[in-house]
């Protein structure tokens, strides 16, 4: 049966471990992706992801469902990311060539993507990652939450604990920096017409 998050949370609170493990299965990828994009290190992102679920599990008796379970998880993960960044006291480093596996990527993409396209996409990905690492943590987080997790301005404002206008400003400033960096690296933005 396809349980909702709320159902699984209720069952987990009743002591059903399997239900909580289903929640982990459902949310570990997004949480890992969030952590990776915010802190920029694969191993640490995995640690953050693991710690997020461990903390969530321990705090489950105190979770009364006042927010969505996913928002609650995101909040825990972001707090952990913030702690990690503070602890490191440095800008997130970028793993450029590490983990690049063209063969794997090619198999993921299927036969339609040529090797040239693949290389171009990887290069662009590296440039984007590099540009994201240049952003201040709060701008980077706002962009990650908006672009990759589809949150509304209000949800981001709640998570970051700032007014709505601040979120919009962060997004604008972050996107502007990204645009400049991409232009500088020969990634000339193409004019697109919004529909």
């Amino acid at each position, binding site marked *: 049966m396809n349980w909702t998050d709320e159902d699984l949370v209720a069952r*987990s*609170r*009743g*002591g059903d*471990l399997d239900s*909580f*493990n289903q929640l*982990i299965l459902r949310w*570990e*990828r997004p949480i*890992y992706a969030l952590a*990776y*994009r915010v802190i920029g290190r*694969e191993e640490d*992102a*995995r640690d953050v*992801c*693991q710690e997020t*679920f461990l903390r969530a*599990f*321990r*705090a*489950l*008796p105190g979770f009364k469902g006042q927010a969505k379970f996913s928002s609650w998880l995101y909040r825990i993960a972001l707090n952990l990311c913030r702690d990690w960044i503070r602890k490191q006291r440095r800008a997130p480093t970028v*793993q450029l*060539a*590490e*983990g690049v*596996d*063209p*063969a*794997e990527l090619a198999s993921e993409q299927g036969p339609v993507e040529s090797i040239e396209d693949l*290389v171009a996409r990887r*290069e*662009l*990905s590296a440039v*984007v*990652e590099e540009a*994201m690492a240049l952003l201040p943590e709060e701008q980077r987080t706002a*962009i990650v939450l908006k*672009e990759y997790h589809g949150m*509304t*301005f209000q949800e981001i404002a709640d998570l970051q604990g700032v007014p709505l*206008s601040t979120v*919009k*400003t962060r*997004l*604008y400033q972050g*996107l*502007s920096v*990204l*645009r400049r960096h*991409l232009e500088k690296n020969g*990634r000339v*933005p*193409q*004019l*697109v*017409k*919004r529909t």
Partner: protein
Amino acid sequence: MSDTFQCGDNAALVSYLYDECDPAERAAIAAHIDLCAACAAEIAALGSARLQLASWTPPDADLGFAIVRPQAPEPAPQTVSPGPWSLRPGAWLRPMPVWAQAVAACLIFGVGLSLGVLRGTTSTQSSSVRAGAAATADTPGAVTATDLAALERRLRNEMAALRATPVNATGAVSQLASTAQQPANTAQLLAQVRALIDESEQRQRRELAFRTAQVVTEFASQRRMDLAQIQNNFGQIEGLTGAEVREQREMLNYLMRVSSEQR
């Protein structure tokens, strides 16, 4: 929300970009963009930056986390308590179950204890040591200077006796026979030795598996690095080739232009 839009209102531009504004505001901004080239370019550039963001994907990671109970399952609790739970990766490196660890610990302890007991019984059969043991009966296990002196005396005597008498086959047989008077002890000892050998083999197998895994991991990392290097080199070569082709094309164009002018 206002029905008019003015240049420089970046927050409104962002709302428009993400399509998170009410229809009136959206209409106002759209009307302004139709007239203002600067704002239109700004929106287009931000939109393009957004498109390029889509190319950034995090690397694959082995996750598969799962909450596991630290001990044998107990009756289901009514509520989840913040106990010493552990979160373990499901797909890789699962630790040995607690019961198995307990069994292994008991086995090792038992073997050690039996060996110790056996050693103790064998020593007490000797008359000289028996005397020493009697002297220290109140404190079993404590070794005194008297014990050591007695042991030294006994060893010296035995060595002297060995030197004095040649090796006798029948004597050895009789010694063996006296040892065989305790078949139970021997069988037990053999079983313990077998258990120790098995344990050692298991340990070696584990060690081998671990080393193999290390080699495989190192090989995979090296392969990734090599592929990345190849990719970089390929990109450089491609860039160089592209530049050469461009130069040649320019040269051809120039020659054609010059030749046509001469005609």
